[in-house]
């Protein structure tokens, strides 16, 4: 799974556009970073390996945003949440495909790569989101 790709946030989004949720694993202490980092915050290790992780998990918190910044106003109200993935790591994002009144902590979700393409240059790429598992 290890590649020469740099352990950057940009590279994380490039992998997403390929339908892969990739994290960096510290070769010294084993900590898994999502997103990857160039310096391990646990042991200051500097050697990493890419590993693909499951996009399945559960919702740990959510909110429906009604007052949005300019660029999101057309989508409001929209749901966002924090997902805990199967390996324990967490990721924030928009939640689609769930009626807002049915959002519940603990519900099963999966990362949806559908909207992720690298058609536009970084950092203009569309976003990943979460959908019902």
């Amino acid at each position, binding site marked *: 799974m290890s590649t020469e790709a740099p352990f950057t946030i940009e590279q994380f989004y490039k992998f997403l556009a390929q339908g892969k949720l990739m994290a960096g694993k510290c070769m010294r202490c084993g900590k898994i970073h999502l997103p990857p980092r160039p310096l391990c915050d646990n042991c200051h290790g500097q050697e990493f390996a890419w590993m693909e992780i499951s996009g399945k998990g559960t919702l740990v*918190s959510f*909110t429906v945003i009604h007052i949005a*910044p300019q660029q999101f106003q057309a989508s409001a109200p929209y749901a*966002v949440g*924090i997902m805990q993935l199967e390996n324990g790591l967490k990721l924030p994002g928009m939640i689609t495909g769930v009626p807002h009144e049915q959002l519940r902590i603990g519900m099963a979700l999966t990362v949806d790569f559908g909207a992720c393409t690298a058609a536009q240059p970084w950092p203009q790429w569309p976003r990943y989101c979460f959908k019902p598992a």
Partner: protein
Amino acid sequence: MVDGKPLVSIVSAGLSKFGKREGLYARELFAEAVKEAFDRCPRLEPKRDVKAMFVGHMGEAYEHQGHTGAAAADWAGLLNIPATRTEAACASSGAALLSGVYAVLSGLADVVLVGGVEKMTHRSTAEVTEYLAMASDYPFEQWHGITFPGLYALMATAHMHAYGTTEVQMAHVAVKNHYHGSLNPKAQMQKEITLEAALTSRVVASPLKLYDCSLITDGASCLILTKPELARRFTDQPVHIIGAGQASDSIGLYERQSLTSLQATKLAAQKAYQMAQVKPEDVDVAEVHDCFTIAEIIAYEDIGFCRAGEGGKLAESGETRLGGRLPVNTSGGLKAKGHPVGATGTAQAYEIYLQLTGQAERRQVKDARVGLTHNVGGSGATATVHIYRSET
């Protein structure tokens, strides 16, 4: 009896009127706060005595103006001294205060002016929402449309789920702080609100409604600090800072272990309590960072005013209202006094200065001797806690 060793002493303080201050630039608001601090301290000769300045300011986007340290020194009539902006989002002037403590303790500057300023109300709500969001993580939070109220809403949802905290308990924080604001002539909102009005206000980010959110405000604040052994040269009524703590946490809320507690607050409070040799039950009056009602509830728990999960009940009990066991946010807090983000940390210290010198008028806490301020940056990536005591 709390008699913690003074680190530094506050010999004067100033606060501009908070609110919608049309036609004024941030530097002019800052000068308004500085004028009050100078007027309160006739024995201070500012040009001779003040040796350094630290000024909290969050965003250059509001006025298309950065470099706030020098601009503030210029309009304070204090040119030529080192004047530096500190930025830690909404904790920018909490950080300015700690920088001032460091400067005085270092011995390099024996009198230091610390303060903060923000001019926000000339921008639209959408613009302010976007600028405030800059204090959160860009590539994972802002990028996915998560606003600032959204981050605290995520904490609120988690807190309600974990502990049974209710929207009514959160509304009690708003009602209390608006009541306190009604007693503060410098508050932006000086009108009481009802529980029903709070509960039926429009949703901003569920479960947070308009009255769960602090205000968009113009304002400035400042303090004059000196070495404890010099304090009497400037005033007969100094207030001593006896504990100071600041801590950081991950910029992204999603990376934190807990969504129901701010680790940075806990660490900053522990450090300040230890330094001051003070326990939470010794505190007579506190100003905590109520940027949202849930934030005040979580602050109660993290600062040790109650156990984890019991902040909602404490809010409901009335014990933190004026006349209660431990009045919190007697100024009206960020909720009613207002939240000009860069000015908030030293504005909290201004209120404690008034309380501990018996100058808080209609909102005076009787016999207040020990005070605490708690200032948070972002969704909790920065927190500062300071502990104060009166001279006697």
